[in-house]
């Protein structure tokens, strides 16, 4: 009873927040509604007994993807009013295509048949004594290991692509060179002086020649060793 109530509660909030994602005028609000939607979907997973998927959804989608969205929305300053300019102009053709798809979906739905095994699967969502993390692991790394590895290669390509298309090496950028910075001796950077009481630091000129080459040398570390750095 409570589970049913909870299901309807979460489902209703999920649908409402999904609608708000689409209609919200402020893109930041849209992303926040998206996060709300993710949390409710995770709750639905929990109700279905899939605790692993529920937590993955929260960690990956809320923790990483949605935050990234938020960054992008805030940084790019997309003008959504401008994006919607052509909306009315393209509404008729979009409406026609959408209508055709809807009719097709309805026709398809009319022909829907439910497999006789489906109720059995619902009756026992967790097979045997295996936790669902284990169950997913078994399927992913045995039956679908081919697809799992291939998906990894797809992600590698995405990474290479992002670097190839966006990384630029700008001249004159100072980079950190941890090794060189740590290897410096104290004498190269510090000069310990005796300060006479009441005289202040009037004798500064003395260590100057010693310190003079230092900043240049330091800058050299930052520059020199990074040709092709980001590759």
């Amino acid at each position: 009873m409570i589970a049913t109530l909870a299901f309807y509660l979460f489902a209703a909030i999920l649908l409402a927040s999904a609608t708000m994602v689409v209609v919200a005028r402020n893109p930041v609000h849209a992303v926040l509604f998206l996060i709300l939607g993710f949390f409710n979907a995770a709750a639905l997973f929990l109700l279905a007994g899939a605790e692993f998927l529920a937590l993955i959804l929260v960690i990956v989608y809320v923790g990483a993807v949605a935050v990234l969205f938020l960054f992008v929305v805030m940084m790019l300053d997309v003008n959504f009013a401008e994006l919607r300019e052509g909306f009315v102009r393209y509404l008729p053709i979009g409406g026609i295509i959408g209508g055709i798809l809807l009719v097709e979906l309805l026709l398809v739905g009319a022909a829907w048949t439910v497999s006789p095994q489906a109720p059995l699967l619902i009756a026992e969502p967790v097979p045997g004594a295996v936790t669902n993390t284990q169950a997913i692991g078994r399927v992913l790394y045995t039956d679908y290991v081919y697809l799992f590895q291939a998906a990894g290669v797809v992600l590698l390509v995405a990474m290479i692509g992002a670097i190839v298309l966006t990384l630029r090496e700008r001249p004159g950028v100072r980079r950190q060179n941890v090794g060189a910075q740590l290897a410096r001796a104290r004498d190269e950077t510090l000069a310990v002086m005796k300060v006479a009481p009441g005289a202040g630091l009037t004798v500064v000129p003395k260590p100057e020649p010693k310190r003079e080459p230092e900043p240049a040398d330091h800058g050299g570390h930052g520059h020199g060793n990074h040709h092709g750095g980001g590759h």
Partner: protein
Amino acid sequence: MESILNWHAVIPELVLACLGMAALMLGVFMRRGATLAVSMAALASLLLTAVLVLSMDAPVIAFDGLFVLDEFAVFTKVLVLLAAALGLVLSLDWNEKERIDRFEYPVLVLLATVGMMMMVSANDLMSLYVGLELSSLSLYVLAAIHRDDLRATEAGLKYFVLGALASGMLLYGSSLVYGFSGSTRFAGIATAIEAGPPSLGLITGLCFVAAGLAFKVSAVPFHMWTPDVYEGAPTPVTAFFSIAPKLAAVGLFLRVMTGPFGDVAGQWTQIIVLISIASMLLGAFAAIGQSNIKRLMAYSSIGHVGYALIGLAAGTEEGIRGVLVYMAIYIVMNAGTFGCIVAMRRKGQACERIEDLAGLGATAPGLAVAFSVFMFSMAGIPPLAGFFGKFYVFMAAVQAGLWPLAVIGVLSSVVSAFYYLRIVKVMYFDAAQPEFDPRPASVGVVVAGSMIFTALFALAPAPLVAAAGTAARSLIGG
């Protein structure tokens, strides 16, 4: 179903993927002068993989039915590897001159090739999709690799957006097929179709899958991206696009239509006939007004896909054999043609207009002869290879009773002969333009090799036709 891994069937893909990553590491750590080394390593990898593919024992079904290695897959994979190698060789000199010689280029070509090999070996809707995405994603990046060039970035973006749309259609169709057949395995789908009259949902899914695949082969209602992408992308990338991915997508198209959906051929034949006719006609008529040679080749490739699809529409073993022979010949003569286009460079600037070819017969007789051979072959003039490609497809169509398709094919190839021969006329009879820069050796090798194949194919067509026949038998018979 018992679980059989048979992982040794994917050794060629595995080796190529690992070598691709090794090449990436090589490029990252060598820094200076890495591009040439990585390109050579990539070529060697492609060669090694081709040897591995040929040494595999077919047929094998691996990973519990996700992956299939049959004679069809072997034949297509060898051609894909050849096409990738040709594309890579054409890029060597060009990328250096255009200052886009980045070591990621050969790496992306290798990884795209892995994706294409996965496509032609797909035996499940999921492995189909993953393979397709792996190759497509690499291709989007390759299209935009000249990132400081406005047209190249536009081409990359256009390709990406429309490709994502096509992937969406394919996925939507796949989900419907899965929902109504209860399986993503091709064998499972075929069993579900055999069991009774196909449901409306399954047919709708089939249409969406066909639309997604038609986009990838750039057949007509889904061709809009082709001219812009072919024109905008750097020429060697265009050459690569027009041979390797096209071949892999055609192979995938053949496998999906004849495999799981073989029993509902009546449903998809009409789709294929329609897009085939439309592609042939558009390829013939839209290319006439073009002044940019790359754009012309884009329309030409749309037309060629139309001819190849005739064989699929026939749906017989002869038809499939015809498609395979057609594509094999097409990739060689297309690689040669693009070799000639890559060689069009004057005072360090790449030329793309057809007028730039004027008087080539006087200034560079060798190049002009090669270009003419390719153009005559593309038009389907008898002693050359292109004629045989068309011949096998048209014969299959006639035997399958698809007379109208064959007639339209012949008529549109007559129309397309006009613009192919116009290039020959420009080269030999127009007032000469200044000479082109000297050709790099790598391009010369590709052009000469392709020309010899195209010109002399008539002497020994038997091995290729026999291999294609075996491949077709494994697809239709199995």
